[in-house]
């Protein structure tokens, strides 16, 4: 099978973000591969190593530095990459899941993959909408929050486990399909230096977002972005009566 993997470039999860001029400050901030996309890349590589997949194409949408992020995916084992180039922000401030899913759809039309693997969400906007929207546009089965994925021997279907509040769901789906990956699916590999070197020689095609004939408009307006208010220090109470009193009269959570 042929696999298309989404590779989003986001602020590194270990960076403490700050807000400047009404949005998260991206100036000289460490950017990395979205951790859920990293899991998707890892899963694709494992499919290839187990001979279930023949080719993995990594796809990233964003500024020119996305090619760096794509290099990480290529070093982990993707075969080639497509970069949809745009200067619009991809953290919901400008480009939003609808437009992103529309663009991915264009690439799907062009590349005809059997499986699209995406992260369950980007850690910048936390929307979790791109996968479901893409499946909707394509009319393909969608399986979100994958915690285990098996390519079946028939070469035409997959079995996916997803974790839900009420337990593990096991779903069989025929290909082509869209799967979004959750934390427990796998533990991504490190990029070895020899593979980083080899990745430099792999092909990255760049397409201008404006040339895709997709509506890129920002439909949802972001009203305000602010840093979380610091948690107030807790208080200790001496006895149950005092606790009840505070819950009743200060917090107002019981009557």
């Amino acid at each position, binding site marked *: 099978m042929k696999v298309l993997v989404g590779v989003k470039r986001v602020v*590194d*999860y*270990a*960076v*403490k973000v700050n807000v400047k001029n009404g949005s998260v400050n991206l100036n*000289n901030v*460490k*950017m*990395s*591969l979205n*951790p859920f996309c*990293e899991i998707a890349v890892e899963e694709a590589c494992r499919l290839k*190593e187990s001979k279930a997949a023949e080719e993995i194409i990594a796809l990233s949408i964003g500024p020119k*530095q996305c090619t*760096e992020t794509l290099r*990480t995916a290529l*070093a982990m084992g993707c075969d080639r990459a497509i970069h949809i180039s745009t200067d619009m922000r991809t953290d919901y401030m400008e480009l939003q899941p609808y437009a992103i899913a529309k663009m991915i759809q264009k690439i799907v039309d062009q590349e005809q993959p059997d499986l699209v693997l995406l992260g369950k969400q980007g850690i910048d906007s936390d929307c979790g909408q791109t996968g479901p929207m893409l499946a909707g546009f394509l009319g393909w089965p969608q399986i979100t929050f994958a915690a285990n994925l098996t390519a079946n021997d028939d070469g035409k279907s997959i079995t996916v486990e997803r974790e839900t509040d009420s337990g593990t769901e096991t779903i069989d789906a025929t290909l082509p399909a869209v799967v979004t990956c959750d934390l427990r699916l796998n*533990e991504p*590999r*490190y*990029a*070895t*230096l*020899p593979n*980083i*070197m080899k990745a430099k020689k792999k092909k990255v095609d760049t397409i201008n977002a404006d040339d895709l004939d997709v509506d890129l408009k920002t439909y949802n307006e972001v009203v305000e972005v602010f840093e979380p208010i610091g948690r107030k220090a807790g208080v200790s109470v001496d006895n149950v009566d005092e606790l009840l009193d505070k819950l009743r009269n200060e917090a107002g959570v019981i009557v």
Partner: protein
Amino acid sequence: MAPNNDNDDDTSLEKYNVDWTGHYRGSSSIVVRPKSTEEVSRILSYCHKRRIGVVPQGGNTGLVGGSVGIGGEVILSLEKMNNIECYGKKDGSVIRADAGCILEELQNYAAKNGNLVPVDLGAKGSCQIGGNVSTNAGGVYYYRYGSLHANVLGLEVVTPTGDVLNLGYDPVSHLKDNTGYHLKHLFIGGEGTLGVVTKVSLRCPPLPVSRGAMWVTCASLSDVVRVLTLARTDHLNEILAAFEFMDRDVLELVRAAYPSIRFPLDIGNVTPATTINNDTIIDPYSILIETHGSDNNHDREKLESFFECIMEEGLVVDGVMAQNLGQIEDFWKIRELCNPATAAMGYVYKYDISLAAIDFDSFIHDMKVRLIDASHDQQKAASSDKNLICGNWGHIIDGNLHCNIVSPNSFERDSELLKIIDEGIFEEVMKRNGSISAEHGLGQYKNEYMTRIKTPSTLRAMYDIKRVFDPHGIMNPGKYLPEPSAESSPE
């Protein structure tokens, strides 16, 4: 005791009487936990008058038995003095704090304001800045940011007579101040033998905007040294921040002690627990390199071209490069487990020496030969079949080797063996013009070596200084300086 100390939380004396290694145990029945410089002063003058021995104690992570008593001294713990006072400069480039602040808390506080505390080490979660100053701790960024002698701008200390000395601990914290003897340097690395450090002001460089890291493996120590030279000069130069090495023996101990830890070069880096059961072979030497800079792309390019070069020269077996900040922490996690892993596996004969990096190889080799001989003798004596493991790691860029000899599954010190190893280390270090203590200090473990490594006149000057500050010898008695011999003792 005079000062009022609330007996709030943990009143058990055990944790104050045993050090991190578990090898040193005091029998103090009194612990005082002052909350202010004033209280420290009252405690010390009380003990001075009555000639009661005092052991200043920070996070108790020192590795030479300096922070616990030898007999029944009073333990003066700084743990209740942990305010981060303020900045000595508006831009936050100078931080002022009580001696009892935990290093990691200080680091987090500085980071919030865009600054880096120029000292970092594996014990950061427990050790205190006052303890770091008192041991002149080196740590992993020593090469890049320099020693505490360079970075401590000022100290407040209390001498045994109860006098409070302000040694450049000023609200304004000048970067430059050439007035008078720089007495603060006597307390940096003084191991609590001259007084108690109560406040510290430190200069802090800006947090690096860009951090990169790679983990590479080498087949020989001479390759490691060549990689080090190339990193330091032609390739990483101004962005090089840390260069640590670990040998296979210590990483095997880490793997045995923490089986779920994933090593960067495990094949396909699959989780070991689910697959190959930890039997991937670890390359002979592993190196962790970190860079600090101001431009991620620039630093990444430098790291990649550096790797290309060392690969072409055939110096490395394999390597990985961190793709995000989390992976950098993963690499450090392994490095930081070296110490606890040896401690978990058996009794550790612990050494911390300075040598030229090119001498590490022959030193380790010669020590291993000595150990084989020693084990043979031991076996004859005790018919035990335990083989000693010699695990090595350290800040090789500073010429600093942590040589740790572990007796697996046996947690008792064997004093015969200790003597053999001590003497072996001493001879091998001296042969190579090294130092028997690069950063851990002397404490009660290495103090008796002083007569063999310092000239009598140098030692005499040290006794003179000790007498000026601590005429009754109440501060950390029996440590740091050796028991005075007839010829070196004053008067």
